[in-house]
């Protein structure tokens, strides 16, 4: 049987070597790591399609100084250890010039560690845990705002319009959820809002009534939820069943802006606010174009995650055009000198607070009004006036 073992070892060695045949070509290869299978595949797909859309446009327009740009996608299956292996593979085997993607916070964090260690530039476009750009890692750049800034627009809305006194925070027990909730607690402290309920939950629960009962008992002015789409739908539906009536329900982006949210929550999704990072009517050049192109090409809706990916693809192209060589340090230098406009907004990597290489962008507040997601805050950009105060009985009838 030891012979079997030896034979198998040889075989696996052969297999792996055979797979490793290099194929040279005049292309610039960039590794993109996204969740393409697993629970987060939904978002991974929107992002991949957006990357593809941008890639085609970039190459049709002549590529990178005459060379073709190529994205090598790796599936992280929504697990940090797989993301890490994927990054290892892209860097050491495929010899990509830089990395992009990074969806879940944990996965992004793991990839960023590898990138920094291997000195390969990594442009994060979705992973939002604040820590990712607070490590002083010079090879890690982030296009999207960190999770602590998601409710920035909400903050001004609260101080100017709602002036709540109490808040309940419900969050899923993931990296994204728990860091988001901590940051929101800070905001509450700053605004003098008392946090009366602060509970994490295991995502994928059937029955949220036990915590919702608690929320109802405390009757807060504001219910802030950080959840993915299905938990978000169940939370809202069960809140409706229990007739919890705060002044407003606010989602912390992620699940609350997806088209699946109203599909699943039904009328319970009406008049729910959510923080968001992007909206197609924003006055960024190409934002609406991107939205229309995506919808007509793939026959489905897109939202801020897609815009992040699309913008990231253009930033990558711009950086590679400007980089003196395809060496990691030249690319890193070009990344740090980035100053361009994208569909997702202006991109410039700066250092502020504890963060480095972080793009600073405003965030927005959207609201589901008559089954459509409308931009309601800041007021001067609104597509529809916000609905507040809300008569929940009338909404839920």
């Amino acid at each position, binding site marked *: *049987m*030891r*012979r*079997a*073992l*030896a034979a*198998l*070892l040889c075989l*696996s*060695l052969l*297999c*792996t*070597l055979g*797979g*490793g045949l290099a194929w040279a070509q005049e292309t610039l290869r960039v590794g993109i790591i996204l969740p*393409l*299978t697993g629970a987060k595949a939904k978002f991974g797909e929107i992002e991949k399609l957006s990357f593809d859309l941008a890639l085609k446009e970039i190459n049709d327009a002549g590529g990178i100084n005459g060379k073709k740009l190529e994205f*090598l996608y*790796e*599936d992280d*299956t929504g*697990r*940090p*250890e*797989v993301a*890490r*292996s994927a990054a*290892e*593979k892209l*860097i*050491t*085997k*495929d010899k990509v010039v830089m990395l992009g993607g990074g969806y879940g916070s*944990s996965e992004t*964090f*793991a990839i960023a*560690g590898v990138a*920094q*260690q*291997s000195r390969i530039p990594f442009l994060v476009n979705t992973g939002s*845990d604040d*820590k990712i750009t607070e490590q002083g890692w010079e090879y890690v750049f982030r296009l999207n705002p960190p999770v602590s800034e998601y409710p920035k627009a909400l903050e001004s809305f609260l101080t100017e319009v709602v002036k709540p006194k109490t808040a309940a925070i419900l969050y899923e*027990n*993931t*990296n994204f*959820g*728990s*860091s988001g909730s901590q940051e929101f607690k800070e905001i509450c402290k700053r605004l003098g809002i008392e946090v009366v309920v602060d509970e*994490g939950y*295991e995502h994928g629960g059937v029955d949220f009534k036990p915590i919702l009962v608690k929320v109802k008992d405390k009757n807060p002015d504001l219910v802030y939820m950080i959840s993915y789409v299905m938990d978000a739908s169940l939370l809202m539906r069960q809140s409706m069943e229990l007739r919890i009536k705060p002044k407003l329900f606010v989602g912390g982006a992620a699940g609350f802006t997806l088209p699946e949210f109203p599909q699943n929550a039904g009328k319970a999704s009406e008049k729910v606010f959510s923080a968001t990072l992007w909206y197609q009517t924003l006055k960024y050049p190409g934002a609406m174009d991107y939205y229309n192109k995506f919808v007509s090409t793939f026959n489905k809706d897109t939202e801020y995650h897609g815009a992040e990916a699309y913008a990231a693809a253009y930033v990558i192209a711009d950086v590679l055009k400007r980089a003196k060589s395809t060496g990691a340090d030249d690319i890193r230098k070009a990344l740090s000198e980035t100053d361009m406009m994208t569909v997702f907004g202006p991109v410039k990597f700066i250092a502020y607070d504890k963060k480095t290489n972080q793009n600073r962008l405003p965030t927005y507040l959207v609201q589901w009004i008559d089954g459509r997601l409308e931009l309601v805050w800041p007021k001067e950009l609104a597509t529809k006036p916000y609905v507040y105060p809300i008569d929940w009985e009338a909404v839920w009838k």
Partner: protein
Amino acid sequence: MKAPRWHIVVIVAAALAFPLIVRSDYYVHMFILALLWVVIGSSWNLLAGYTGQVSFGHAIFFGIGAYTAGLCATKLGISAWWGMLLGGPIASLIGLVIGWICFRLRGPYFALATIAVGEIFRLAAVVWRSLTGGMQGILLMQSFRSKLPYYYLALAIAFGCIYAIHRVMRSKWGYYFIAIREDQDAAESMGVNAFRYKSLSLVVSSFFTGLAGAFYMNYMAFIDPEVVFSLHHISIMAILVGIIGGVGTLWGPPLGAFIMVFLQETFRSSFFGLGPRWVSELHVLVFGLLVIFVILYMANGIVGDWDKIRRLGSSKAGAASASAGKGS
């Protein structure tokens, strides 16, 4: 161990030379993962395959080892490498306590209890944010940029684990373990203190699993509760690694580990990028089918039923004079 030792010499030599010949970090990385699974699978096998206590909770020890190393760095401010010293003993200690609770149960009830304990550990690690950092996990920087130190360390742990199990199984303990597996009541009536020997088996098993966990923290440099305390990705995988290779055999779990890691990676990367994209969606499915196939047709795993396979493979059935029996 009457079989010729040159096989082992060849394996050791090949393993030592491997990263020097194949200079791709990626393949070395895959081998490090496989070696890690060799340790987890072999440790599980000591408790389940040799002692008959089918644990569905080996992620507990893996997680304890990993968090020991991680907390050394984040809470004690010392290097996570200290975890390599502490991870094993602490996992063993926790193992003793868990054994004290669960060993009063037998067969499937023991298995169920370990699932429950495993889930409790996972949830505790998620909720106890002030200690573990909760789902934000622990991220460290690797100490070495080269893979070689990690590779040789993993290799040393793997061979150390296999050798330790080999020695244990040839000692008096080993006979007691197998006696307990075959018939606990009979063993007890012969004067074997079943509880004590089951605990000893668990202590050794959890020690190596904890060591593997501590190594994982140092090598992968990122852990969170879902990664290291995972029922599906650690506990059950440990079992499947053992099953495929062969429970109750020394070389079964190592073989199973290599098959599992390479099968999954081959499919996940669509045959290293050579196959169509959709192949990557099959990576778990193929492994599941292999598990069903093995259980159905090779109840003792590939190594355990090797003679049977060889007899099927070659027509000279007479030659199958079953040189090496079970549990070599």
